[in-house]
Every structure is written in C-alpha cells, then in structure tokens.
C-alpha cells in the first residue's frame, strides 16, 4: 500500500494533478494489454481446492452410507436444512438413515454438518452447480446425496488434517 500523503505534503507536480492523472492513465493502459485470466465458465471449470465447500454429500463406503443417522448434522444445521430418520439395520453399525434429506434451498454451505459428524459420513463436495425449477427438486434425498468415498478422498483428507488437528 502506498503511503497516503496529506494535501500539504504534496509537491508541485502532484498538486497540479496532471502528472498524476497521466501516471494513472498509463497504469490502466498497461492493463489494457495484459493477458486476461477470465474463465469461460460453462466450457471451462475450476478444479476446486479441497477446502472448497460445495454441496454437502453423504460418503458411500462399500455401497452403503457411512451415516448412522445420529442426527447431529440435523441438530447443528443453523438453517434446519437436514432431515434424518433413523432405522435399525442388521449391520454392525446398528443404525442407518432410512431417510436423509437436505433441503438445498435452506442449506447455507456453512459446513457445520461436516464438522460435527462423528463418522466422517457427510462432507462438503466440490459440486456448486445447483439449479432447480421446483421446490421439491431442491430437496435432495439419499439418491442424490450418496457419493462413493473414492471421489471424496481429498476432502476427507483435508477434514482429517486441517479441521481436526
């Protein structure tokens, strides 16, 4: 940051502005010819960093969700976007979500659900393209939320190393 000068400290050429204006014009002129780094969005897309918080997804391990439907994400969600209904399963984990719905119109992508999850079962993905035309489409059930663990490796790594020191 340039040090800001008081008006009385300016010397003559600065005072008559003209030189300073020309300096400013030359700066913008320089930028006129600089290479641009705009991304042509629908054709080009950014590979988001692991720290990016896209839509929350459920981790699918061996074809089943890791989630045990403890409801902590639902409780911590400041926007009340998550609804979980637990049920009993014969698996070792005893409990699983028979219904897991995230209302993407309510979700604010704060990542609290991910932070509170004791099973690393819900993580923020890199998916940011969320468009709906009807209210009901915005409620994502297990069919849309489940993502294989292989696709979420870097986020899980990030959660483990960065968020839970």
């Amino acid at each position, binding site marked *: 940051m340039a040090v800001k000068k008081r008006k009385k400290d300016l010397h003559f050429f600065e005072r008559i502005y*003209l030189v300073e*204006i020309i300096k*400013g*014009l030359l*700066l*913008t*002129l320089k*930028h*006129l*010819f*600089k290479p*641009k*780094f*705009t991304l042509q969005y629908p054709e080009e897309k950014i590979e988001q960093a692991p720290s990016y918080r896209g839509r929350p997804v459920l981790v699918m391990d061996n074809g089943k969700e890791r989630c045990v439907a403890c409801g902590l994400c639902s409780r911590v969600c400041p926007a009340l976007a998550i609804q979980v209904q637990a049920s009993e399963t014969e698996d070792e984990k005893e409990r699983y979500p028979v219904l897991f719905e995230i209302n993407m119109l309510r979700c604010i992508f704060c990542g609290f659900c991910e932070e509170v999850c004791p099973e690393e079962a819900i993580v923020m993905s890199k998916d940011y393209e969320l468009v709906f035309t009807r209210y009901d489409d915005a409620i994502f059930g297990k069919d849309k939320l489940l993502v294989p663990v292989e696709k979420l490796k870097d986020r899980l790594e990030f959660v483990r190393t960065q968020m839970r020191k």
Partner: protein
Amino acid sequence: MVVLIPLAKIAIAISILLFIVTYLVYFERKISAWIQDRIGPNRVGPYGLLQSPADVLKLFFKEDIVPSAATKFVHSLAPVISLTVAMSTYAVIPFGPDIEIFGQKVRLIVADVDVGILFILAFASIGVYGLTLSGWASNNKYSLLGGLRSSAQMISYELSMGISVVGVLILAGSLRIYDIINSQQGWMWNAFIQPIGFITFVVAAFAETNRLPFDLPEAEPELVGGYHTEYSSLKFAMFFLAEYANMIIASCLITTLYLGGWHLPFIDSATLSYGLMPLISVMIFVAKVLFLLFFFIWVRWSIPRFRYDQLMNLGWKVMLPLSLLNLMWVALLVYFFKI
C-alpha cells in the same frame, strides 16, 4: 435537390451516429473489461459484436414505467429534449472538406451555419434542461438531486468552456467552423498554440458530457442513477443515446477546435490526386475523433469520481482563472506576433 441533399445528409448523419453510439457502448464495455483484466462481452455473436443490438432490442421490449407521482408530460418530454438537442448539435459539425459527387458540390456538413460555435454552445446549454426536467418530473429525491447537480455543474463549466473557446475564436477571427478548421493548417493546431485552453476545454467537455470524473448527476453509489432513476425502456434508452451522442459531439468539437479538424501536418502539402484527398481528410477526422472517444473511455475507467465540493472548487477556482489566463495568452500572441 435543394431539399433532397440536406435530407440525405441528415439521414446519413443520424444513422452513422446511431451506429457509432451502439458500438461505442460495446467498445466501452470491452475497454473497461480489458483495463480490469477481464474479457468483456463475448457471448452474443462473434466477439460479442451483437451484444449492443441485443441490448437495444431488450430495451425496446422493456416495460415503460412511469412513477404514479411523476409529472407525466414533463417526464416524457425530458428524454426527448436530451436526445433532440444532442442530435441537433451534430448538424453544424463538418467531417471533411468539400467534395464533388455527380458534379454536385457537396459540403460534408448538414448545415453550414455562420455562427456554428454559438449554435453549439447554445444547444449544449439547452441540453441541461433535459436532465434538470427529468430530475424534477420524476418526483424522486435522487432524481431531483441528480438534476440539480447537473444544472449546477453545467453552469460552472460552461463558463470556462466558453472563455476557452474565445481564445480559438480570436485566432480564427470567425464563428464559422470551416474557418476555424482552416485556420489550423499545418502545425498551427490550437492544441499547440494554446495548451492551457486546450486542457481547460477538454476538462470542461468531460464535465458537460457528464462523463466519469464528472458524472455526479448520475453517481450510482449515492444517487442510484440520479436523474434517470425513474426511467426505463425507451425513455432510458434515449438518455443513454444522448449521453453517448454528446460524447461523440464533444470529440468532434475538440477535434475541430483544437486538433486541426481533418488537417494533419505533411498531408496537406503532399501531392495527392484530387479524388483521394477528401477521403483521406475524412479518415483523418474520424481517426482523431475515435482516439478522443477512446480517451473518454480510458479516462472513465482510470479516474474516480469527484466529490461535489471538489467539482465546484475545480470549476470556479481553477478552471475559470486558467481559461482567463489562456485568453490573455492568446491576446498577447495576437498583439505581439499578429498571427
């Protein structure tokens, strides 16, 4: 013929004007994008060239909203004044020397008025009615403040503008624009002879056209668009058009008054065929105007807006003395060197 040629001239002039305005908007957006390290419109048509026509089309189909508390007649009248005035001023600006088409001697000007400069100054002053009336008729505090600011700004800067022009008139000895241009042949550009006048005029021109360091009447962050807050659809388009038309006129005026019109050193003395000469002259004129338009845009995206007190300080305490100084300088030049 007496009627047809002026009509043809008007038709050509206006269509060229509208075309240029359309693409001026496009270039303004492109240049602003480049200055900000962006790409700018590139989706509508190749390189985004159809962006402006698309915008115009969009404006056509927009709903025309008139505030219920507005003075309806004046509200509709104001943009018409703005645009008419801007277009009329265009009439007395020549684009090149006389040419001959089919044996007819045609002047590249719509109306060669003896008092061309006065005409321009007079019409420029009328232009402020458009803004002030729109501000008043909208019945909106932002619009009113915008209108108020524009009239105050116009009065403050018209003064120094007028006095700067007097310097040019003294040297040319005529109010006709042809004479002014012809007095600047070779290196005798007024920009070089009276640089202070040139600078004050350019600054005043920026202020008169409400372009960026002086766009206080619009001032989006403070006034939400100023005088045209309550305008939409075609009426808004008219203001928009008028602003860009004014910009073109200002560029033409600077070219004619200070940059030697279609004259360029060395070109005049060169031996060129009679048919080619007017064409080159017109191209020179257009090139100068285009550069000035670029300069307008360039400045807009480089220099931030003045504060209102700074604007007034500059107008009355700097511009006015400077233009008077320039007048004295020209008077002394004439007195001692009898130019």
